[in-house]
């Protein structure tokens, strides 16, 4: 279950559950028994104890289940920014920033529809870009 490096030319996903390419999306380990979804490297299933997993591609759209607007952050992180929990259409929940929205409680609302977007989060000394993901409002 060790992560496979999906390095696309000079880009690499920030975490191995982000799949880059023409249609960037998230992928999860899915328990063969109970269908529980996990983003991390697994030893067994926390729900049912089974020890074999498949993989499942998740939808790129969903709704904001919860959020916080962060005004005091770890050093080097620009504020304010919006951290959110997004329930993906068809299953799976993920934590990510909300972007392309004013970071105030008048513009960020519970239940708003959002879609996945990717962005460059950093560049290493070889010029490889770390690609991260966020969610942004959709109509």
């Amino acid at each position, binding site marked *: 279950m060790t992560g496979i490096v999906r390095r696309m030319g000079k880009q690499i996903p920030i975490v*191995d559950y982000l799949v880059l390419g023409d249609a960037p999306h998230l992928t999860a380990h899915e328990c063969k028994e109970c269908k529980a979804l*996990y*983003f991390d*490297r697994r030893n067994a299933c*926390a729900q049912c104890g089974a020890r074999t997993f498949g993989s499942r591609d998740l939808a790129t759209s969903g709704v904001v289940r*919860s959020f*916080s607007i962060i005004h005091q952050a770890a050093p080097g992180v620009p504020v304010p920014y919006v*951290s959110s929990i997004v329930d993906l259409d068809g299953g799976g929940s993920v934590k990510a920033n909300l972007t392309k929205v004013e970071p105030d409680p008048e513009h960020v609302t519970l239940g708003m529809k959002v879609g996945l977007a990717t962005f460059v989060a950093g560049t*290493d000394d070889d010029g490889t870009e770390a690609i991260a993901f966020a969610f942004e409002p959709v109509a």
Partner: protein
Amino acid sequence: MAESVWVLGASMTKIARYPDKDVIDLASEAALNALDDGGVAMRDMQVMGMGNMFQAMAGLGQSVQQQIGQTGIPVYNVVSACATGAVAVRTVFLSIMAGEADMGIAIGAEQMGKMGLLGPGGSAKSEKNVYEPSGRYGSVIGAEGILGTTLMPGVFAQAGMEYAYEHDGVGFDQFAKVAEKNHAHSVLNPLAQYQKAFSFEEIKEARMIAYPNTLPMCCPSGDGAAAVVLVSDSKLKTLSKEQQRRAVKIGASVLTSDPYAERAQVQPDVNTLTRNAAKIAYEKAGIGPDELDLVELHDCFATAELLHYDNLGLCEPGGAGAFIDSGAPWRDGKTPVNVSGGLLSKGHPIGMTGAAGVFEITTQLRGEAGDRQIEGAKVGMAHVIGLGSSCAIHILEKAAA
């Protein structure tokens, strides 16, 4: 196993910054005072539970014994984030219930030094020269602030907003009212780190930390220690009338961790394990939430307290907003919550907190809480949660006269 366990002695230091004391000083002070309070000495103890987080690796229980009395008794050094102090209480409780001890001392202590709100985990992303995936998520750079937040202020803000998503009548105002109440309560508690009231408007207009929590809606960093001496039913009967009169019965002592929940992979679920612990605790104590005269619950952030009104059954299901709006958890309300000032104003030295809650309820049931006394309190609950997660609940009962 049929025995009851009682709190014989209890103490806590005032919560403050103690730059000239180390964690062993704080733990020793609390322990010696709890022993004095119970009219016993280290030589009477048959087990020690020691809770501390930031120096957990050091195994401080033995160091404390070296300072206050080395009699060769077993020591359990435990850690479970913000529930640490209560887990220490549990190890002493278990030792008595198992018949290995008839008296023991549990200590929770923390010397947080200069750590701020974000804790020691709040380091910046450190970028590597050449990206290589590592760890359980195959991360190439630190994701804090890039893929949302995993730091406490944001996590508990999101936990509160999730409740707001699911239930009407819950929002910024309700969360702010929780902080207004706890800061007001703390004015009566000389052991609280802060004893300053804030108006509802001051709280809402204070510096935003992680919406919806402003600065006075977040617990401060502080140092301190609390200790309790526990005794078996049969041993208590051999002690003085005065010791028996002041002893407080442990009606229930419960520890849970979080069961599987789908979303807990990305956002800790602080609700289910509290609901499970409360259910077991009410069953063991043979009471319901209506019979609680006061509750100390884990208000690390104002948002957290609101959830636990519902999780502990203090309000109608989904009714936490209406509960705070009604004034029910104020010290003159239906179910006083955090009359100590709570973590928001009393303070929250991590390893201490679980033991401090037991101290507060014990002191109230003894009628020794001074200005903050809830008159006639007979049954109380102390609740803590440590992310990771653990939930500990103790229901305490005043001795029959």
